[in-house]
């Protein structure tokens, strides 16, 4: 099993969710994060003070899937989250050793 963790632009969430449910993935967890990268931020001005804001709002999506689904999931996210402009984000795949569904105690593939 793997966790696919993607950093995306916030307004792409609905499209990514739809793409994932389209390929049969029915669970995911989303976190509001701030990203720092090549995409440049803004200058904010508050009366006398100017601040360069380099952290931009992004969403982190985490999807646990069985190993054989990983490439399909990565593709789905890539396709749906892409705008082609800098700051579209990254996808990372991490290994999971074990999974449990709290409600039932089912484990691993059954837990997803």
């Amino acid at each position, binding site marked *: 099993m793997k966790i696919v963790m993607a950093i995306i632009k916030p*307004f792409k969430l*609905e499209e990514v969710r739809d793409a994932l449910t389209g390929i049969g993935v029915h669970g995911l967890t989303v976190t509001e994060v701030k990203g720092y990268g090549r995409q440049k931020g*803004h*200058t*904010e*001005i*508050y009366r006398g003070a100017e601040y360069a804001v380099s952290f931009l709002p992004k969403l982190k999506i985490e999807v646990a899937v069985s190993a054989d689904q990983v490439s399909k999931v990565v593709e789905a996210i890539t396709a749906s989250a892409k705008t082609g402009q800098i700051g579209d984000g990254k996808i990372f795949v991490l290994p999971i050793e074990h999974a449990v569904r709290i409600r039932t105690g089912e484990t691993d593939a059954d837990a997803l």
Partner: protein
Amino acid sequence: MTFKTWSRVGLPALLLATAFALPVLAQTAAPAADATTTAAAAAAAPTVNKGDVAWMLTSSLLVLMMAVPGLFLFYGGLLRAKNMLSMLMQVGYCVAIVGIIWVLYGYSLAFTGGSPFIGGFSKAFLSGVTLESLAATFSVGVAIPELVYVAFQMTFAMITPALIFGAFAERTKFTAVVLFVPLWVTFVYFPVAHMVWYWAGPDAIDAAAKAVAAAADGAAKTAAQAALDGVLADAGYIFSLGAIDFAGGTVVHINAGIAGLVACIMVGKRLGYGKEALSPHSLTLTMVGAALLWVGWFGFNAGSNLEANAVTSLAMMNTFIATCAAAISWMFVEWLVKGKPSMLGLASGIVAGLVAVTPPSGFAGIMGSLVLGLVVSPICFIFCTAIKNALGYDDALDVFGVHGVGGIVGAIATGILVSPALGGTGIFDYTTGAVASYDMATQVIAQLKGVGITVVWSGVGTAVILFIISVVVGLRPTTDVEREGLDINEHGERAYHS
């Protein structure tokens, strides 16, 4: 940061320095007579009561409070956080620029005679408005200082264009708004205010009518009657048609509501409209704003009586009860139709009730207002839900659905509720000094004419203005700017940090 641009700032200051040289308040320079006082001079000099002054000053502040912070909160809370400041900026700008325009030429255009459609420039720069000049109320022999009237009416002009912003919120360039406000008040608001509210005042009519009565023989009678006719003709077009509007249902709400409808169609839908959730970022702020609108609206409605007397308290009670009824009505309608009573529904009902009772507030009986409140909410509800969705325009904050529709309902209902048989006050006839005889059909038709003229004027005027602006600077920001939010892109700020 460069300071070479500083030099440019001097220009407007210089321009105004010219105006500034006019000795507007120097008492020697003040013309002894203006339209109001000339007419009144024929009768006994009207008196000023400090109780009226106290109430009217308070009322002016209440109307200001409706705009800032009332509208800030009511509108702002319904937006996504990324566009919050853009609304505060637009409303704040609107209030400020209209204040300046008002004293430069707005008051003069709205409240001097001239044509039935627009006043003249005789009081531009408030020329001739001194500490001594008076404005008429609705009672013979009772006046208030003219500056009080200038201030009170100014607050109406300040808030009306700001109401429109709700319709095209979250997707309009600030530069477009900067141009829109001065154009719209000049070509739409001032004419409509003039058409609805400008008249010679009770003292002038009373004096002329008494002169007719006192005229000895036929020739004198004819002359006096001609004078009276002249005084009666010295009024705005819609006023002359017999349409009544106690506190601005046509001038403010229908006017802004129709402009909003036109504007939201011309500006186009928000990105993601109908697909993404465009959820309000703080319904708390919205409800606080609705509450402040409610409190402030008494300045609007009860203040429109221009005196602190029993009629003022009638306007207050009508405003209270129509609002209560509309809030309850919206709540139950939504509960029945949608399955849950929502707080935004309650807040919407409050505003719908306030809008609807604005034109009849000083004319209706209290039970009439109660019925009006119960009736207006379901109508607005249908427009804000079924009809808006069916027609597919993105009136973001339902300016048309609430202000436009509610204003039309109220304006028409005024023709009915003023009926003495329904507990209304009837319409006072200053030529006879008594309540005039009332015919419902006549009055409702007059009201419909008033509504119709306002709808057309506002609709056409707004469309032309926006078309010009769309050519000059454009209406919409880029997609990226809209996505990321107007605040950071247009104003360099974000509303919230932790």
